[in-house]
């Protein structure tokens, strides 16, 4: 029972982390290695707005999500657009941006254990004999709603369909009058907002520390690779596989091995089936 409950929670938080990355890669084909930095920066912006400026918690969250979205769009519009299509430059540039943001935050004094965000709702309830606090419950509900919302958004709205069209075939989308650079910018913005949503949902459970930015990046890459780069449904299912695998190793082997599982999952997936579980990439192009 414990494994079931905590496995689900872990999986949902992994899915939240991975969705933003999957979305950006799926649409603009930019592997956004600054994902972890966007996640952490959202946490710190919320913290600053809430404690330093004294805004209500809800408004602080909304504002910091907007900041994150704008930051993501700026990053695409002014930096990544110039290297788009050159895989390695994309990785190096976005990773360098992420590194600059994270280490800049560390230099700016955001380190140590004293940065925490309040949970949404105090209290807990019992499922069987496992205590489950309301915040984790809210996180699960919002996570699942978010995935459902994304599905509706990409299948039934104009912008969503345009994004999907671009993901499938950029040239054809261009011919149909979809501005691909604008859409990629939007996708980057959405991805950044998703990273922010993940941050505001997950960060209240612990401290905001810069180091977790790197872990978030690794976890989101793990989820996306196992699910297949660019497919966000795949990322969602992969999150459940990795999430349960992690909880199982923690219970049966030891908590040291939690990260090993994720890294092993990446390496094994890439070796055995690079296009992932649900990837739509053409396998021949990725392998020789």
């Amino acid at each position, binding site marked *: 029972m414990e494994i079931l409950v905590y496995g689900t929670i872990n999986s949902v938080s992994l899915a939240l982390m991975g969705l933003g990355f999957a979305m950006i890669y799926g649409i603009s084909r930019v592997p956004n290695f600054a994902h972890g930095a966007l996640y952490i920066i959202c946490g710190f912006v919320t913290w600053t707005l809430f404690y330093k400026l004294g805004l209500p918690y809800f408004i602080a969250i909304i504002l910091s999500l907007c900041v994150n979205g704008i930051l993501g769009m700026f990053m695409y519009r002014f930096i990544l657009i110039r290297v788009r299509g050159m895989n*390695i430059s994309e990785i190096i540039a976005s990773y*360098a941006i992420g590194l600059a943001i994270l280490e800049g935050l*560390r230099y700016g004094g955001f380190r140590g254990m004293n940065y925490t965000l309040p949970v949404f709702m105090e209290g807990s309830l019992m499922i069987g004999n496992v205590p489950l606090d309301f915040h984790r419950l809210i996180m699960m509900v919002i996570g699942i709603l978010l995935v459902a919302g994304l599905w509706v958004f990409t299948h039934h709205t104009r912008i969503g369909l345009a994004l999907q069209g671009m993901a499938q075939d950029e040239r054809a989308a261009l011919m149909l009058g979809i501005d691909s650079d604008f859409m990629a910018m939007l996708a980057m913005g959405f991805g950044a907002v998703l990273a922010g949503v993940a941050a505001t949902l997950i960060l209240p459970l612990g401290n905001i520390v810069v180091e977790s930015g790197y872990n978030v990046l690794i976890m989101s*890459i793990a989820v996306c690779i196992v699910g297949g780069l660019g497919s966000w449904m795949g990322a969602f299912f992969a999150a459940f596989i990795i999430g349960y695998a992690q909880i199982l190793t923690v219970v049966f082997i030891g908590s040291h091995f939690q990260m*090993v599982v994720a890294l092993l999952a990446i390496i094994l997936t890439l070796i055995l089936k690079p296009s992932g579980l649900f990837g739509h990439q053409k396998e021949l192009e990725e392998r020789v």
Partner: protein
Amino acid sequence: MSTQESRKERIDRGIKVRSDGLYALMSWRELSYLTLPRFILIAGMLSLPFLVPGMYWQRVISIVCIYAILALSFDFMAHYVGLVSLGGAFFIGTGGYIAGILNSYFSVPPFLTVPLAAIIGGVVCTLLLLPCLPLKGVYFAIVTLMYPLFMARIIEAFNIFGGTDGLVGIDSFSSSFAEQYLVICMVLIFLFGLRRFVTTDRGLIFTAIMDNDQAVRASGINITKYKALAVFIASAMGCLAGACLTHIYMWSGISQFALDFSILPIAATVIGGSGTLVGPILGCLILVPVSELLRDFGTLRIVFYASILVGFILFRSDGIMEFGQRKYEQFERWTKI
């Protein structure tokens, strides 16, 4: 109102054209035109230990050379074989740990551990990377980025080789001169060796694999074998650098798998000029001392070199070396259209 329409044109200098063919060397001037840049590099590198004051900066020279070897191996893999490896730390860590194990468990002296670590490390890295060789582009980059993290977690989780404390009490080189000249000579040997190597038949096959691997395969050449050979060369270089690092610090630990060793060589390659083989060394000669100077500012130096990296990728993606070469070999003038 009339505006003068003009464009800039670049023309090869006469001396470059004359000295391009080997038999046309007519004067000392042409001879020195060809050899001077190389001579300056070699002489400069060899005289560095005398020019630099103080123990601290002497140590920095060794670190520069270690990063330079690593950057060379990255440049070779990325621009001559087409395998972009973000896992320089994997090579450094493997080499460092092998040297550390040989020295502290079997008490092998440093002048033997370094070559041994290079060869054993090269074999180990090649074997571990063998399953990933069919991958291309971003997939190979991600998987190599994950390897050093994976190794660090494995060592931490199983608590082997000293666990999180690492292996301590490893012998250092006999003197600091020996240490510096070893790494400096290695940089020069690898630099000129690789420049030779990429023009041989094997080097040609490597370049062909980068350009169109299916065509190479269709010519009846086993590309996996050649890719493995390339990985062996690059990883042996990285492992050698790692072994030197272990002996310099008399310590090998998990932080040798840290991302610094993956990122800084790439930054140096981008700044110095990718695909030139000399560029990475120039990049290291600039970047490492600058980052040492900024050590007082703590993590701000990482911000600093990350921003330089982004700036270079966006605005000067050909790097310093290409720029310098252009200035040296060509002149520019404005012409009317």
